[in-house]
């Protein structure tokens, strides 16, 4: 990818870098503990307002917990949930999509029907049922989200697989005597990776919002975790008076999702054209990009290379 400097995604890159740094170095960055609250310091407004203090730059919630610290630690949850859920869903969905797309026939139809069913599952219902059946835990949230996510991967990857399968090099690999496993892993998968990357990135935003929603509804990550969704829920009763409890985690979520989506768009724009050139001849008015290597063409069997009338 030869990207020029003004093409690079500065804004989303910076935001996401900040997110990752916050998550990794949370103990060093957060001024206070995210869970231990000083009840005497409750509902303190942000620093620029009357009554605010430099100890709590973004204020405190009703338990006296520092909002800023909670946001910083909350980034860990958002990041972890995204990575794990996408990892699980992506792996499973990709595998399914590859097999479905490559095998075709009954396998394909069957797997796609399963995918359709999975796509129609009502998320909130599932989450609520899970909570009713077992405790709300971090693992359950990740599981529920992964459950909802994998069909998207399966669909996308299946589509890409179908496209790559049409390429001659796949048929030639069969002619070369290679097994399906080898073809899927060495030919199809590497060419499906760009799409996978784009889809994964674009799902992160969805996952964060999903986790936020689930936590908000009380069926997600359990308190006292500083999950952003929980923070927003906590501040629900104080929107008029202590609006900062809900607003700042909301902003954090918005910024993160926005950055992730922009990044995903950038990836798609920069990876897709390459993808489309996979089989099609890139239309170039000048001939080859730079000087083609293989000067050995002059070494070709020389009969007839020297013309004489």
């Amino acid at each position, binding site marked *: 990818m030869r990207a020029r400097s003004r093409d690079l995604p500065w804004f989303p890159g910076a935001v996401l870098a900040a997110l990752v740094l916050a998550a990794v170095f949370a103990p060093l960055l957060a001024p206070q503990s995210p869970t231990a609250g000083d009840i005497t310091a409750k509902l303190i407004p942000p620093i620029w307002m009357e009554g605010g203090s430099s100890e709590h730059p973004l204020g405190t919630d009703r338990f006296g917990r520092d909002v800023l610290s909670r946001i910083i630690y909350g980034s860990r949850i958002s990041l972890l949930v995204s990575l794990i859920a996408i990892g699980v869903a992506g792996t499973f969905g990709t595998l399914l999509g590859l097999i479905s797309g490559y095998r075709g026939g009954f396998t394909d139809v069957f797997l796609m029907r399963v995918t359709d069913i999975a796509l129609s599952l009502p998320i909130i219902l599932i989450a609520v049922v899970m909570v009713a059946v077992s405790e709300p835990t971090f693992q359950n949230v990740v599981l529920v989200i992964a459950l909802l996510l994998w069909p998207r991967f399966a669909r996308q990857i299946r589509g890409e697989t179908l496209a790559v399968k049409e390429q*001659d090099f796949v048929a*030639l690999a069969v002619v070369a005597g290679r097994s399906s496993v080898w073809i899927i892993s060495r030919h199809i998968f590497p060419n499906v990776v760009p799409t996978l990357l784009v889809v994964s990135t674009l799902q992160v935003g969805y996952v964060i919002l999903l986790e936020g929603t689930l936590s908000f509804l009380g069926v997600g990550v359990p308190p006292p975790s500083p999950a952003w969704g929980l923070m927003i829920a906590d501040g629900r009763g104080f929107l008029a008076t202590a609006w900062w409890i809900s607003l700042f985690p909301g902003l954090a979520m918005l910024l993160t999702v926005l950055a992730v989506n922009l990044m995903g768009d950038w990836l798609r724009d920069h990876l897709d054209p390459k993808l489309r050139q996979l089989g099609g001849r890139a239309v170039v008015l000048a001939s080859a990009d730079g000087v083609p290597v293989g000067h050995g063409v002059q070494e070709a069997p020389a009969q007839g290379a020297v013309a004489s009338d």
Partner: protein
Amino acid sequence: MLRGIGLTKHFPASAGFALGGAHRWVKALDGVSVQVAEGETLGIVGESGSGKTTLAKVFLLLERPTAGSLLFDGKDVQTFGRADFARYRRSVQAVFQDPYSSLNPRMRVEQIVAEPLGPGNGVSRASVRERVADVLHLVGLRRDSAALYPHEFSGGQRQRIAIARALVTYPKFIILDEPVSALDVSIRAQILNLLKHLQEKLGLAYIMISHDLAAARYLATRLAVMYCGKLVETGDCEAVYSEPLHPYTEALLSAALPLHPSAQRKRIVLTGEVPNPTNPPAGCRFHPRCPKAMPHCQSQEPEWREVRPGRFTACHL
């Protein structure tokens, strides 16, 4: 010796999984019998819908025939065991039309060319590398091209890489599906010459599928003309070109334009469209467009006969 007898391939006309079975069939191939012996070049010519690409796929075991049999050195492919398949794959390789889609852009040339050498051959990595280098040299590329990626090569060079891959197992037969159609005109000669040279040097047999009658004439020793899934004429290449026996062959040859204004053949311009293999005409499939059609051509399919020594055709004339 590679031989197809009565090869037939019908595809269901509706895509997807129809529970009741398809009712309409695309009759891509209908009772085609051809053979190639070591060292010769069989040219298969025809237009779209003729079934030539399907025939190539059947020979490459990419499609299983609905009927008919494929014999390799006398043994029917349907009776093949694992070892037989492996041997077949090593002996029968392919070069396809599009040099851009034939090479995986994410693999290095070395991996691409070495692919047919397969696992479990007991061949060491060093000797694989040597074999690849040798074969690259054979097709006129530098040995160190092996470390590069396809996008660093031009169309003609990519086709050479594809040919190198086809050669790496030292096969006996190579199926060439329109090997030069996607290349620039001045590069075609390079590749055609290369193919000819390789055939002489390595004793290869080619099945060359082409719609380009000029290129077929250059490489082929025997010719088979296909129309709408059926063979229409076969015979020695020069004989067919100078004296076509079937009206379709005549029309096809007259449509292919020679390279001089005054060397034009008698122009036979066909009316009508290339037929749809889902619904081929009754009787002789060519009769709707045949300038010499007779009444019984539309009810009776003509027989496949040896009209002259070594020359076969199916026509009521």
